């Protein structure tokens, strides 16, 4: 028995972090917020094999597992990196693998970073503003809101019967509208369907459910990384900033805030690892731990985001230190693919706890 990362997994995460330290520092993220173009970063990550991570070797991929993907998601959250990892490298390959069928060409393009996939499944979890997509197995109608990784070549769309489809960006009867959100690192938008032709991937609601499971674990991992970065920044600031002739980190009022952040966040790491491991190895636990990792990391993440900002005092509130990029990323992860209350309700349902 071993509960922890292998040397290879640690190495993978270190190399992604090193790459992002160099290629996606805060100033690069700020640039993206003005001109949303991630080509250079995505290109670099493609050279490191990231879009190919979950794709089997015989389909031109790297053939690694969900835990490795979660480690990458954590690193991306840590750097608030604006790349379409969640949709293209995780949820779409998962959907294609579960759907069964010959997707060799598409998987090859995804693995090469050449084709990206946006995710429009939110209405099957919680439809807002009366949005929703209806389908008949080959055409779609209605609208999907807050589509993830919106700047994509293809969209993975779920209809109200929990069937999954692929829709091309240029498909007839599809209109796209960018939606601005607080998080400038995540292109998001609205899709409107008018008898839009779509390729049916799967009619099995369990396929959609498993695609959402893995997406939730990735969002939990992203929050873990983002919150860890905010905590690290807060601790560094508390050591350096002086008031009353001493570092503010020597005051218990401040150091206890830092201790509370660690105390909340450190167990999230083990929870995310297990949730990712369970997806590949313990199917009976996978949905429950995906739900709990999503909800619990969202709660701890919100606490860390608020507390780390407060440790910075007034500077935390400004755009100068840029803490708000992480704050907003954590906020985005919290609402997407099921807000905490909804996901906890699903956790209870999975266990058949109530009537």
């Amino acid at each position: 028995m071993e509960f922890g990362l292998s040397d290879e997994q640690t190495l993978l995460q270190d190399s992604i972090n090193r790459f992002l330290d160099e290629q996606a520092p805060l100033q690069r993220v700020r640039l993206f917020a003005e001109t949303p173009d991630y080509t250079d970063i995505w290109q670099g990550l493609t050279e490191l094999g990231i879009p190919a991570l979950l794709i089997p070797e015989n389909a031109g991929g790297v053939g690694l597992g969900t835990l490795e993907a979660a480690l990458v998601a954590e690193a991306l959250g840590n750097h608030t990196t604006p790349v379409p990892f969640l949709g293209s490298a995780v949820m779409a390959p998962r959907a294609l693998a579960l759907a069964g069928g010959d997707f060799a060409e598409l998987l090859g393009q995804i693995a090469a970073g050449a084709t990206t996939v946006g995710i429009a499944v939110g209405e099957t979890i919680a439809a807002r503003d009366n949005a929703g997509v209806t389908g008949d197995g080959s055409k779609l109608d209605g609208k999907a809101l807050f589509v993830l990784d919106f700047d994509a070549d293809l969209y993975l769309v779920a209809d109200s019967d929990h069937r999954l489809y692929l829709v091309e960006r240029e498909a007839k009867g599809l209109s796209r509208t960018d939606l601005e959100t607080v998080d400038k690192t995540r292109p998001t938008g609205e899709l409107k369907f008018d008898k839009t032709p779509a390729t049916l991937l799967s009619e099995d609601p369990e396929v959609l459910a498993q695609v959402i499971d893995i997406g939730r674990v990735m969002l939990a991992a992203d929050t873990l990384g983002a919150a860890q970065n905010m905590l690290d920044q807060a601790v560094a600031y508390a050591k350096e900033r002086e008031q009353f002739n001493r570092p503010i980190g020597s005051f218990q009022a401040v150091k206890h805030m830092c201790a509370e952040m660690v105390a909340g966040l450190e167990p999230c790491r083990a929870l995310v690892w297990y949730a990712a491991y369970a997806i590949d190895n313990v199917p009976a636990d996978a949905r429950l731990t995906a739900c709990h990792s999503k909800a619990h990391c969202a709660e701890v993440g919100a606490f860390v985001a608020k507390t780390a900002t407060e440790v910075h005092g007034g500077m935390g509130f400004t755009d100068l230190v840029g803490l708000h990029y992480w704050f907003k990323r954590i906020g985005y992860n919290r609402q997407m693919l099921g807000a905490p209350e909804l996901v906890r309700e699903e956790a209870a349902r999975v266990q058949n706890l109530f009537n």
Partner: protein
Amino acid sequence: MDLSYSSQHQSFQEEVRDFLESHAEQAAEAGGLRTEKGLAWQQTLIEHGYTARTIPKQYGGFGAEPDILKTRIIAEEFATAGVSPGLGGQGISMLVPTLLEVGTEEQKQAFIKPTLHGEMLWCQGYSEPGAGSDLASLTTSAVLDGDEWVVNGQKTWTSTAHLADWIFCLVRTEPDAPKHQGISFLLFRMDSPGIEVRPLVDMTGAANFNEVFFTDVRVPKHQIVGQRGEGWQVANAILGFERDSLADPNITLQRFNALIDLMKSETINGQRLIDHQMYRDRLMKIQGRVMALRFNDLRILSSRLTKKDTRLARLIVKLQGTELRHDLESLGIDAMGELGLAYGDNPYLRDKGSWQIHYMYFLGLIIGGGTAQIQKNIISERGLDLPREPKVEKKS
């Protein structure tokens, strides 16, 4: 990550399960301290290696090689079966490992075996009215007079002092040395002349704690563990053990399962509590925390085999584990509402009043064994390298 057990550990797990099944009757009848059946159960557990497992045979243990996974399997299987894993108490959990670490051969021979077998009960004389979080400022004194130490002063929060045969006690023997270097670790009998024990009733109504007063208590010179002035190091050799054992995630999981049962059986206006969305959401919030701490515990356990650095994961266990238990018990009370207030002889009492008792008891554990605030100092100073508060000179 590989959470499967090897075939060796699988068969060990089977062995433990078989034992629990075949000894179910004896386990159910085993009483507590000082009962014939309690001592017999302890004897059975030691013979099978389910308690005192790694303590050498010559000192009355089972003498197995350390195997963290087997220790974990025992803890899990006993918790699942709801069977007592043997006697605890500060003699077994704290003094025995201390003596194994720093005791003389004579001390090991004299004290470990009767302690393990429940024949010699101990209490711990550490805290004093003026020395709580700042334990090293303790003032109970021991002065050498011929071949004996003469002990004067007062201890407090002394669990089981009213039952104990012996005490292991921190005393100041070098009054002129810096505070951490003037302390010694003494062992002496609780029936020595000059000891007075007064019960200290806590908020649950029980009196597990005591105040203990020493007036010219005479202790043979050789009953010191470690050298004069080394008592602080002796005590700290194992202090971490106590903190972590206050928040065992296996027991937290048992309580969480009891909470589910409670919310499935208790009703409001005829509707089960678990069918109320508000209470159910609180239950699920707690479950997320229970899971996170259980996996954190597995990670720590595993790192002891792989030598990976999990310092932060370890430092937070006492703080998070006790807070979680307090919140868990609190939900049990809230779910029952007015019924949750029942106490003592109330005919509407549920689960023997365990929800209220644990709710209060775990507030005690948030404070005891190093308060939550001291834990946060430790996490931030040792875990995050944040600077210490400037020292204030001693008042003259």
